[in-house]
């Protein structure tokens, strides 16, 4: 017993020694800065410097000023729309690759799906502007085929264009976790269900979908959380009515030099996201537990 305990201690020591550099890096450059951001959000912005007076004024401003409140609400709606659209559109793709592609060719399909994600994000967003614009590719194509007589104007510089562009940008983040969950499903369960006389659709609803839920939950979170903080897409294709919270944060930090208010906006956005994610996890808890 004593020897085993000693072995475990040595193992813990070895592990801690290895993890120390990345852990210290993350503590110093991630956790400490995040905590400082929280502190800043309670300080007062003075002229040229930050006054060390504790205040709730920044949060009061962030939550009651109709401009900030509107942008925050819009960011939330856009993130939710993007999440729903991305996950719904991605599911059949993950399903196809997992269930209908030869095992030896699966990684090639996944590679094809991930390639566009690795190409310059800025340039991809800009090209969506080219596709969706008044004289854009989509309008030109639709006019050429006589489907519309004049260019559609609801495509660019609004919430629609932000949702389309973000749904494109986050596609692999939704496909990959769902694919991994689908891969783990024991295929004999599906056969059992069909042997017991269930149709394919009922089998999907009662066996495949519940078992794929951990992947769906992961996909929802991994799309929802970062989208609310996206800066480039709303800046380039959002137009004045498509601005999101990251644009506000940038404005406070780099233009207006109001760090406390910028921090309060950032912390508020993160808080909203955290609360919604927690509620979502609570509702999907039974799926995550039931799939052992």
């Amino acid at each position, binding site marked *: 017993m004593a020897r085993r305990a000693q072995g475990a201690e040595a193992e813990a020591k070895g592990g801690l020694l290895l*993890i120390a550099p990345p852990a210290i890096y993350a503590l110093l*450059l991630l956790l400490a*800065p*995040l905590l400082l951001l929280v502190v800043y959000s309670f300080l007062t912005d003075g002229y040229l410097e930050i006054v060390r007076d504790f205040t709730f004024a920044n949060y009061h401003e962030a939550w009651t000023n109709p401009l900030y409140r509107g942008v925050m609400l819009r960011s939330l709606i856009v993130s939710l729309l993007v999440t729903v659209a991305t996950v719904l559109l991605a599911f059949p793709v993950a399903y196809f690759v997992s269930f209908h592609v030869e095992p030896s060719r699966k990684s090639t399909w996944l590679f094809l799906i991930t390639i566009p994600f690795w190409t*310059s994000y*800025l340039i991809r967003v800009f*090209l969506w502007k080219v596709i969706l614009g008044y004289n854009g590719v989509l309008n030109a194509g639709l006019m050429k085929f006589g489907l519309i007589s004049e260019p559609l104007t609801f495509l660019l510089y609004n919430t629609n264009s932000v949702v389309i562009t973000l749904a494109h940008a986050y596609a692999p983040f939704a496909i990959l976790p769902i694919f991994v969950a689908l891969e783990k499903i024991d295929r004999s369960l599906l056969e059992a269900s069909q042997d017991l006389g269930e149709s394919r659709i009922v089998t999907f609803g009662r066996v495949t979908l519940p078992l794929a839920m951990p992947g769906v939950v992961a996909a929802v979170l991994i799309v929802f959380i970062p989208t609310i903080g996206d800066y480039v897409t709303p800046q380039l294709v959002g137009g004045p009515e498509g601005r999101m919270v990251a644009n506000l944060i940038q404005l406070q930090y780099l233009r207006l030099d109001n760090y406390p208010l910028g921090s309060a906006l950032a912390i508020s956005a993160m808080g909203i996201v955290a609360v919604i994610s927690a509620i979502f996890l609570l509702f999907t808890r039974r799926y995550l537990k039931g799939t052992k």
Partner: protein
Amino acid sequence: MKGGVFRIYTIGYLLFLYAPVVLLPIFAFNDGTVIAFPLQGFTTRWFTQMWSEPGLWPALKNSLIIAVSTAILSTVLGVLAARASTRYRFPGKAPVMGLIMLPLVLPEIIVAVSLLVVLLGIGIPLSIFTVILGHVLMTTPFAIAILTSAFQGLDRSLEEAAYDLGETPVSAFRLVILPLVMPGIISSMLISFTLSLDEFIIAFFLGGTQVTLPVYIFSQFRFPASVPVIMALGTILVALSVLLLTVAEYYRRRGIAKSGGKDTGGFL
């Protein structure tokens, strides 16, 4: 045809995914200053004009310095974390790993502003160096994800055999484990390099007056006249990253085959 409706849907979805990437070279070779259809004819002048853009070369140099440093640093940190998490059990493993992997889901703007506050607080001037600090934070989780799958497939008995033959933990790591995970290390470096080269927000906030390639590209979007040159630059960048990724994918697959694991596909 296997998969029927799903195959057609997936191909349609791939068209949606590739639409911007396909348009890029079309406009890069288009002989018109306006980025729109109809096309005006073939030209390579945007590519030649790229050579005389004054801001582009310093930005490229900065980006390369940052991306190479980030690739090396985050892979070193990634090797340590992946080795620790796959081989050892130690107290506080879950929260520590959670913290290190957090930037994977944290919006980049949060990472950027929180680091900005700290750096300005301690009085470190913004430069290439501060961008590297931020990029390493962001790319380390990706490095860990790739390296974990490389370390996971390792056979413990190989390492034990090395000890029995008189190797120390350090020499066993260097002589036995490192060669086996080398493909994972190369793949991790290439992915971190690609991510850093493309990163905009952190570079925008933490670069100060030092401009990286994405920051340069973003600034050029304001001038319609310089957009065709950016399309040409983008085409080269896309071709380059597809090349790098194919090499990374090759090493990733070879690494999995080498350590005897099964390919589950994908980088993430």
